């Protein structure tokens, strides 16, 4: 018998908080994907549309390997299978990153942003096709043993309490940790500093002996890693399936809102968008017939841009003539 909660009628405040928390939870996931964009844009000036495809690709790899590896090696330990699958998927993403640098970006240096954007769209097509060809197009399962049932918080404060889903909670923690970790990595590690140097000025970076191509491979690998984590989180929640690649569209308003070049921007932008779209859908949506959250996220970003054309944390542009 499946679990049936006793939903008491909620106080408006309780429900508002619940929506807010829900927004923050999806928001942190958007931040995660957005980080992928920002990392790559900072280091190589590429607006990487393939981020979504990479999420799908890595998630597919993870899901399928988790199925196959026990077959190949004949053991039944779920945890071990998942760990091995994760490592395997990660290695695959590194290879992908390396190939992308070698075959595509390495040959497109100093092209205009739009050309690079298109190139990544080409990569998107390729990965979508290749991923489904390799791993299949059906719906697959990533079971990292996340708890599914909701729990109720603050029931003594608000009648009906605040419903929070444990899986989301876990996901949020992981995402938050990763986001923090990446921010650290950028700030304090040697590679991180190198990355920022590259981001600030390619020529200069090269002249002080930072090897661009290797940096790019690293960045794309990191982006691949981010994609993988995002893929695992969403995959275990929604099942791994083609539609995962659409997460990219969720991250776009985030990156422009936060500023293409800003790590904190990606984080804050993600939370803003997440909260904004949930609140809008739940509280404004019904008046407009619902389904407004997609365009609302973009319109929200648009209005921020009208105030700060370079995004919340992006660098200001001054015309020099």
């Amino acid at each position, binding site marked *: 018998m*499946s679990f049936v909660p006793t939903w008491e009628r909620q106080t408006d405040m309780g429900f508002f908080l619940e929506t807010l928390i829900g927004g923050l939870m999806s928001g942190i996931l958007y931040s995660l994907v957005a980080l992928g964009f920002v990392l790559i844009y900072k280091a190589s000036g590429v607006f990487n549309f393939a981020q979504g495809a990479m999420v799908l690709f890595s998630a597919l790899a993870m899901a399928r390997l988790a199925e196959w590896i026990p077959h190949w090696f004949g053991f039944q330990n779920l945890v071990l299978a998942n760990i091995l699958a994760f490592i395997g998927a990660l290695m695959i993403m590194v290879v992908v990153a390396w190939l992308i640098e070698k075959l595509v970006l390495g040959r497109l240096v100093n092209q205009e942003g739009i050309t690079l954007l298109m190139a990544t769209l080409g990569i998107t097509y390729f990965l979508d096709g290749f991923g489904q060809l390799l791993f299949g*197009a059906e719906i697959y399962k990533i079971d990292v043993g996340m708890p599914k049932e909701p729990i109720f918080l603050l029931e003594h404060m608000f009648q009906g309490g605040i419903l929070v889903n444990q899986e989301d909670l876990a996901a949020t923690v992981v995402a938050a940790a990763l986001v923090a970790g990446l921010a650290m990595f950028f700030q304090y590690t040697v590679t991180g500093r190198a990355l920022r140097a590259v981001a600030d000025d390619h020529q200069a970076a090269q002249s002080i002996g930072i090897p661009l191509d290797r940096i790019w491979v690293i960045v794309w690998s990191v982006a691949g890693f981010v994609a993988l984590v995002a893929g695992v989180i969403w995959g275990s929640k929604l099942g791994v399936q083609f539609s995962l690649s659409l997460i990219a569209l969720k991250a776009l308003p985030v990156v422009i809102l936060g500023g293409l070049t800003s790590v904190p921007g990606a984080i804050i932008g993600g939370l803003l968008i997440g909260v904004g779209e949930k609140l809008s859908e739940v509280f404004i949506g019904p008046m407009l017939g619902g389904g407004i959250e997609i365009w609302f996220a973009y319109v929200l970003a648009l209005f921020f841009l009208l105030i700060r054309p370079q995004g919340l944390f992006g660098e200001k542009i001054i015309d020099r003539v």
Partner: protein
Amino acid sequence: MKKPMNTFTMAATLAGLALSMSLSGAAAAAAADAKEQFFPVLSYRTGAYAPNGIPFANGYVDYLKYVNTKGGINGVKVTYEECETGYATDKGVECYERLKGKNATVFQSLSTGITFALTEKVPNDKIPLITAGYGRSESADGMVFKWNFPLTGTYWDAADVLIQHLGKKEGGLDKLAGKKVALVYHDSPFGKEPIPLLQERSKLNGFELILLPVAPPGVEQKSTWLQVRQSRPDYVLLWGWGVMNSTAIKEAVATGYPREKMYGVWWAGAEPDVKDVGDAAKGYNALALQHGAEPDAKIVKDILRDVHGKGQGTGAPEEVGQVLYMRGLSAAMLAVEGVKRAQERFGKGKVMTGEQARWGYENLALDQKKLDALGFAGVMRPISTSCADHRGAGWARVHTWSGKKWEFTSDWYEASEMIIKPMVKAAADKYAAEKKIERRSPQDCQS
């Protein structure tokens, strides 16, 4: 600026032409002399809806293969060609144009969008269009939609049956008064089809209808379920397709909405929708378009023996008998039976044109005896179409996910004519007016 464009395209398109001709030319020629009945298959094995598209396509193709193992349609060999639409309308149109030239018998798109586009084209090409359990609800009116056949039921039937079932649960339709019913729907023509009927019903039975659209493909439903939690409906109707279904069930789990109170349309009640949710989906209900999962049906055993047994199987054998596989299977069966019926009039053992096949579909008379003979005992109920009624039957029942498999949990319902008929007529007339077409005359029905 025509110069480059023309040289360029002519080259390219002529190449494309050459290819497509070389493919089709052969088939068409063959169909003419060697007695072959050609069935085009618009399928989607890729993209966001692949998980549901694949088993359907496999069932469809397997049945066509099976017919040949039984010596074809009264000796006429069945041929088919698949074309991948990816559930995209323009791709579907391209496939239609590519395949119709090969004496296509009948098209089934398994996509509301493509159905809408093809509905405009089939009358000129004189090819019937079967939309078993989907498409335009008003196309049940054969007097306006001469070439459309929403056999076995439309979305209005589905919605009506669901409400009847809820009424039964409550102990009488009158008990629905004051209850809240939320419709969580795929935000597209497919998802919006049932709304008019549900609104009609809510007026009639006095329940409150809450509409919650989900943007396709439906991976983002958090706010939808927040709203469910807020409005605390007594029942949730799920009008989804593809990944939207499993997502909805997962979100229901996440918000702790009882699965027992969820009822899906017959496109939201198959294995792909629940299998990766597993136990958590236990208790979730959905309509069955007559059949459900039928592992024990005679036809399934036959196919396993005669098609998969001979290594001819399209998909994995364990998928044979699953819900969407059966959906494809029965769709193919209807397509074939129409041709059989047409042969009774235009000559046994002859290849039927699309136009002749159309008569067959309009005069289907599948009684229980025939169905049993076909091995569909317990899978389907009798269907008999007519000039006025292109739907043939409005039967459906509810099945429930046990955590392992789908089990029937209700007996048969029939959609209530008194509500649906006038709605169909009105909608059909509106369409006819828009398209400036006349209702068919009685003598046209004889043709």
